[in-house]
């Protein structure tokens, strides 16, 4: 884009961050009473909500029931007022369906579904305000919500986006960087074992540049993992004070 430098000469991005710097993360768990698990996360200006119901009996078609594990049902949607232009179809369009499928596949890898045969776990994610990194915010919020619901999970699932501008990998892209830089890699990682749950890349990237971008994304995911861990521990402390343990 003419006149919009994604990386300045001094090495600062549009919002003043360094290339490997994450946006400010604020998260809360257990915000809703009706749901079994819920969480809210803010990564910079992106705000995402995740709500988990389950495990419960399979609703709708009984034919979806799996005899040896739980069925995971994910739905991703964006509020109509979450983007600069009003979103006419908040769910049901191709992008939302693709995101829902990715979330389902990510969490099928992380949740110990063998413990709940013939049941269903619903994960609903909603974006209240979108400023890039929608998938990452959803995954991070959903991880916290699943933990809040008490569903056993192999490891935290941490996600982050990464790009490549002027030979420098950037992490945690905001909307302007996502649309402007050409390459956007989304990575979902289970930090303890270093296992990649999901990796997606759109647009062209030279093979030689893939390694530094992946490295940067994995480091960012690990830092996010530590942040999420801190949030969970603090929530547990608050809850145990309230219940008087």
């Amino acid at each position, binding site marked *: 884009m003419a006149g919009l430098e994604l990386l300045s000469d001094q090495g600062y991005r549009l919002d003043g961050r360094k290339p490997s710097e994450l946006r400010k993360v604020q998260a809360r768990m257990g915000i809703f009473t009706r*749901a079994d698990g819920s969480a809210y996360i803010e990564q910079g200006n992106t705000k995402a909500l995740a*709500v988990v119901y389950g495990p419960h009996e399979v609703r709708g078609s009984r034919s979806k029931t799996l005899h040896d594990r739980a069925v995971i049902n994910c739905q991703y949607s964006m509020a*109509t*007022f979450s983007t600069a232009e009003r979103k006419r179809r908040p769910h049901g369009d191709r992008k939302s369906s693709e995101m829902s499928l990715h979330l389902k596949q990510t969490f099928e890898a992380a949740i110990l579904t063998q413990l709940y045969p013939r049941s269903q776990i619903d994960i609903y994610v909603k974006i209240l305000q979108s400023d890039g990194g929608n998938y990452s915010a959803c995954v991070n919020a959903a991880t916290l919500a699943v933990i809040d619901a008490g569903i056993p999970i192999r490891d935290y699932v941490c996600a982050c986006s990464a790009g490549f501008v002027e030979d420098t990998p950037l992490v945690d892209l905001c909307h302007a960087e996502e649309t402007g830089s050409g390459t956007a890699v989304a990575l979902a990682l289970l930090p303890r074992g270093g296992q990649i749950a999901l990796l997606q890349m759109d647009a062209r990237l030279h093979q030689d540049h893939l390694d530094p971008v992946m490295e940067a994304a994995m480091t960012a995911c690990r830092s996010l993992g530590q942040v999420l861990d801190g949030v969970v521990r603090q929530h547990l402390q608050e809850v145990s004070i309230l219940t008087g343990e």
Partner: protein
Amino acid sequence: EQFGTLSSYGRELGEFRATTLNIGSISTADGSALVKIGNTTVICGIKAELATPPTDAPNKGYIVPNVDLPPLCSSRFRPGPPGEQAQAASQFIADLIDSANIIQREDLCIESGKLSWVLYCDIMCLDYDGNLLDACVIALLAALENAQLPEVTINKETELAEVNPQKLHPLNVTKHPVGSSFAVFDNTIVIVDPTAEEESLSTATITVVTDEDERLCALHKPGGSGLSAEKLQDCISRAVTRHREVRKLIEEVLKSKQQ
């Protein structure tokens, strides 16, 4: 969980749950408000777009409300197209905007016959614990009072609209209606602000909406068991008192936001 149950049993019959309000949290929306009545959480976002005015009313704009009850707010709602309750709530809000004159549609017109504003008011429930309509009305009112629209002028030569995002002015909210909902049990007991559990056990529900001139804007009693006229009068008086409480809350929040 246990704290929620205790407070709903400890409440007086005429007592509303704790109401909190947070405005302007969504920066991508032109106006926004988040309301919590007890555990019921509702968020309203206002998006303004430009359009040509309707041919039968060239000096008026459009206000399009929509109430969404997504499956995340409660397990009783399934994914898919809007259900009965969501559609009925949307229609209730649309009728209320028309009858209560919250915003004069003429104020939304920029140039008669050529250009006007369309205000999309999207109300979304995030946590459903009864008394949806009251929360929706408060959220809508607070979001409209918080909304700022940019100045639009029509360039005389090109006939195109020019939007100036630096110059923002608030909407002119002429009336401020507030609703109160009641649940009736067997024509005898009337309680205010029912939770989801109380709603499911009730035999009828009533919603009364009043404005600041103590006039009735809406009275909604969709069937259910009968109710005597004097009980109905009590409901209306309670609604008038509730109006003052909520108005004060909205004004306090708006004032602290400006500071």
